[in-house]
């Protein structure tokens, strides 16, 4: 999986057919996505509950990426508008679930006096969360293959 062209293509899939350029998406994410992800993962060591919240986020990233991929395929294959709408709704719901899970872990951190810098690094608007998720997806996928 060390193909740089493929990596760039994967990161860009969330913007397939959209106005936002890859450069704009990258600018949303000045900090390296991996650093925020690493800090987030460290929180999992705090308790079994924290560990399960981190796993929920990892699973949400995977599910979100799957819906982005499904929507990309629907666009390329020019599926019926209704089908594309359904794919887009699934993507939106997965995006919401990911944001909710990030916020749940953030609240846990606030309550327990743990690092919350990772949440600030990711950013609060939906596009920033999307860019971050696409940036760390490869890492999350590879971790599950080990």
């Amino acid at each position: 999986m060390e193909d740089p062209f493929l990596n760039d293509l994967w990161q860009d899939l969330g913007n397939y057919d959209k106005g936002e350029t890859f450069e704009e998406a990258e600018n949303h994410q000045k900090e390296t996505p991996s650093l925020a992800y690493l800090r987030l993962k460290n929180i999992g060591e705090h308790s079994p509950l924290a560990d399960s919240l981190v796993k929920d986020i990892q699973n949400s990233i995977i599910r979100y990426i799957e819906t982005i991929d499904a929507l990309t395929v629907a666009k390329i294959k020019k599926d019926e508008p209704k089908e594309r709408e359904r794919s887009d709704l699934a993507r939106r719901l997965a995006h919401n679930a990911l944001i909710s899970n990030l916020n749940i872990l953030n609240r846990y951190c606030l309550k327990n006096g743990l690092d919350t810098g990772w949440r600030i690094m990711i950013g609060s608007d939906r596009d920033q969360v999307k860019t971050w998720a696409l940036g760390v997806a490869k890492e999350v996928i590879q971790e599950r293959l080990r």
Partner: protein
Amino acid sequence: MELREFKEACEQAGLGELWAELTLFAVKQRQIAIELGDAIQTFRAKRTELLALARAKGLVVPDKLANDEVANLSA
């Protein structure tokens, strides 16, 4: 960035369909990697469950089955 510019250049050069095909294969590779990851995680969870139940029933679990490397059989 280069990728988006290159994509546009390809489309303008009449290579849009090939680009779309390439994208579909990029998606397919990621889908397979996710599916393999799911299978590995499920395998590990089931293995843990099996070993725990087997031990609870007093079965002797062979060392090599209890070894973490079993989880990597698929690799």
